[in-house]
């Protein structure tokens, strides 16, 4: 049934690759229990993954893409209920999904087989389906050396004798770009960077020679450079081994960079599927077009917007140094100036010290040396009342909007909080102010009395922005404020910030690892690498003028992945 639909439309694919199906999901239905209601996440979903292809499953949060991955590996939480569906792995293994459904309650409908015993997942996970998780560092056992991870996997699945473990793992690691495999085997996960951990996870997955590899947002937590690195390796090893990969992602650029075929998923329903090039160059479904347009909206190079350069800078950072635990140097001689009404972007990979810089400016950390000058006064070493007074001038919006809001309070209460702390106005005035700013960020009506758990991430970020602006600060620091959001929401929040900036005239310090966001949004971009700034350039000119090799590398990585997207 599935095949007929597919071949009817793109006949040439049948001729080109008549390959074995490695993973086939038929009519999968999953619902989540929430209190008394049941929310249907996947509705009769069918898909097919063929040998030697990378199939990208593209969707925004809540589209059910991770639920698919969890369902086929038996990792769904107890609140999930599988209504039905079948799973074929390779040519031999067939699994009826409803047998896995709610172990206890399924007994009555067990059709005499298995007596509600459920599926033998041990035989499927690892050998049949291997999995790559978003946070590789957390996926590894923190108290086990990398070598022990390999030993465990290989010996458990009886793929090697104890003597062979080491050579096999070193060979695998060298395939994945580790030249010093022997040293890596002796490391603990926390000694490796996020990108290295993800490569180790990939090696661990591959050492079991799985039929199918499922990668659930494997690069979303990585910065541009290591993202590119991991994706390239994934593509290369996949081609070499002829592996079938199901790549789950929210990022069009990731899907574009590596996948052969793409399925666009929206609210548990497949909106569109087909050859990656075809889908992105000639999208048929309205939803795909919408995704692509919100993306290009973000990536559009900025119009010429000039900031005022008159007078002394509003915020000036001079020779800032910060060391953690007396040895790890995070900031090294940082110099930066932010002018009135300017939007300045700080671009850097993970671990470059950009968040520490933000924490030093807002007084959450004390620098060892150097000064943070605000209107000519040093604010870096203020304590007590002086520091609290600073929050009327410098405010911050965090990456994880939901975590930055107290879950027990309503939107109205949250925005009034800073006013209470600063003893501004009486109760009525505070309410009016809060209502005004919430209205400005688009939170109105019954949303005002909702609490963060009942709001979407985008709405939470809007509340966080309103809360930051209610004190009318001169400087707004956005620490990866849009990185955790879906593409379409990202575009909305950026547009909102731009409008508020025009309206209220504050300066923005925009910290991000994403060059697209900064290029469209900022006047100037400062590139940060290993704790100091390598250069500051006009946003529009960064592409052409930059001579720094690090900036070039960042630009190249971002550019490669987007090739052919517009």
């Amino acid at each position: 049934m599935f095949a007929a639909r597919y071949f009817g439309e793109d006949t040439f694919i049948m001729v080109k690759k008549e390959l074995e199906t490695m993973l086939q999901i038929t009519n999968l239905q999953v619902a989540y229990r929430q209190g008394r209601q049941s929310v249907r996440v996947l509705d009769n979903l069918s898909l097919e993954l063929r040998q030697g292809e990378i199939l990208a499953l593209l969707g925004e949060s809540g589209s059910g893409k991770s639920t698919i991955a969890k369902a086929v590996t038996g990792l769904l939480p107890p609140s999930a209920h599988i209504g039905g569906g079948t799973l074929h792995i390779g040519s031999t293994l067939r699994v009826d999904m409803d047998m896995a459904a709610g172990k206890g309650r399924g007994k009555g409908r067990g059709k005499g087989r298995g007596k509600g015993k459920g599926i033998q997942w041990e035989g499927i996970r690892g050998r049949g389906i291997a999995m790559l998780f978003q946070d590789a560092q957390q996926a590894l056992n923190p108290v086990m050396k990398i070598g022990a991870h390999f030993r465990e996997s290989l010996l458990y699945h009886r793929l090697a004798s104890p003597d062979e473990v080491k050579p096999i793992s070193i060979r695998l690691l060298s395939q994945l770009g580790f030249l010093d495999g022997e040293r890596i085997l002796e490391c603990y996960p926390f000694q490796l960077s996020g990108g290295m951990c993800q490569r180790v996870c990939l090696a661990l997955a591959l050492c079991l020679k799985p039929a199918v590899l499922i990668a659930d947002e494997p690069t979303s937590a990585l910065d541009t450079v290591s993202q590119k690195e991991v994706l390239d390796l994934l593509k290369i090893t996949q081609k070499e081994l002829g592996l079938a990969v199901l790549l789950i992602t929210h990022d069009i650029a990731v899907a574009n960079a590596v996948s052969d075929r793409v399925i666009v998923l929206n609210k548990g329903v497949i909106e569109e599927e087909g050859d990656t090039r075809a889908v992105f160059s000639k999208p048929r479904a309205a939803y795909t077009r919408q995704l692509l347009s919100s993306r290009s909206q973000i990536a559009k190079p900025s119009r010429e917007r000039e900031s005022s350069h008159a007078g002394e800078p509003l915020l000036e950072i001079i020779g800032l140094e910060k060391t953690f635990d007396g040895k790890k140097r995070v900031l090294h001689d940082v110099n930066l100036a932010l002018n009135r009404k300017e939007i300045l972007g700080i671009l850097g990979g993970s671990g470059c010290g950009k968040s520490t810089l933000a924490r030093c400016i807002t007084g959450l950390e004390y620098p060892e040396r150097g000064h943070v000058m605000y209107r000519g006064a040093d604010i870096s070493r203020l304590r007590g009342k002086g520091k609290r007074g600073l929050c009327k001038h410098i405010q911050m919006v965090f990456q994880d909007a939901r975590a930055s809001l107290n879950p027990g309070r309503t939107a109205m209460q949250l925005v009034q909080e800073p006013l209470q702390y600063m003893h501004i106005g009486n109760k009525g005035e505070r309410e009016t102010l809060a209502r005004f700013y919430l209205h400005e960020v688009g939170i109105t009506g019954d949303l005002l009395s909702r609490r963060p758990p009942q709001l979407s991430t985008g709405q939470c970020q809007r509340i966080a922005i309103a809360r930051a602006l209610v004190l009318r600060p001169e400087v707004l620091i956005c620490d990866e404020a849009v990185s955790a959001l879906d593409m379409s929401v990202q575009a909305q929040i950026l547009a909102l910030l731009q409008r508020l900036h025009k309206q209220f005239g504050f300066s923005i310090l925009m910290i991000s690892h994403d060059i697209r966001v900064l290029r469209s949004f900022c006047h100037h971009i400062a590139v940060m690498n290993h704790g100091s700034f390598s250069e500051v350039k006009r946003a529009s000119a960064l592409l052409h003028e930059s001579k720094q090799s690090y900036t070039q590398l960042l630009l190249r990585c971002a550019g490669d992945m987007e090739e052919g997207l517009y």
Partner: protein
Amino acid sequence: MSNANHPISLISGIVVLSLLAILILGAPFLAPYDPVKQNVTERLEKPSMEHPLGTDRFGRDVLSRTLHGGQTTLISSVVALCAALIIGLLVGLTAGMFHGSIIDIILMRLIDVLLSFPFMVLAMVIAALFGTSLIHLLLAVVAVWWVSFARLTRSVVLHAKNETSFAAARVLGATNGAIIFKELLPKAISPVLILATFELGSLILSIVALSFLGLGSQPPAPEWGSMLADGRDHFMQAPHILIGPALFIFLTVLAFNLIGEGLRDRLDPYEKSEL
């Protein structure tokens, strides 16, 4: 199996505890005899229709004494627990909030000292200094019991300080007091309450044990621990006089442990799966 959807332990714990509470709090109306009235002609009688649990060596009705004694034991342990809980929360919040400062160091060393000091000896020292009474017993219990709450609260606070909401509150200009009571206290309260229900069981046992040693409430007032001590001399001839207090101690501790387990299933963030 007990989980959040089928809170068997929580419900059974509450049922047992409410039955006990009705019996104990209703003692003045339910108890058949005056708990302190002696009747020398009816010494050490076996259980009968008149005396369901028999009589003790002064001819007092064991059932009546058990019910009345429960009031002393239960009320004093709940009072001691509340005091320990409040002290523990305040100390833990302060130590966690000013982590690494001199206040934190002093409080933590004080806790170390208290933990390494034998609790029974401390109670005896207090009794020796101030005389034996229930109040002094409770003081000794509270002086030791706040430690576990303080430790738990401090660790929760240290964890919460790494979260974004803590940094956000700081940036918004929240005072230390506002951060402690609005951001940190709500996070600490549910694990501490769960611990409290578990601790209440062992707290009752300690109060009973100290009374057994003669440090708590003084005769002729009934109390489970001192009743056990009373029966000690005669349990060869009349083992039944131990059954009443022992059974009630057992049921009360069991009920609180069941409730504690049920609450943990309900509230503990680490036991809950996503969604």
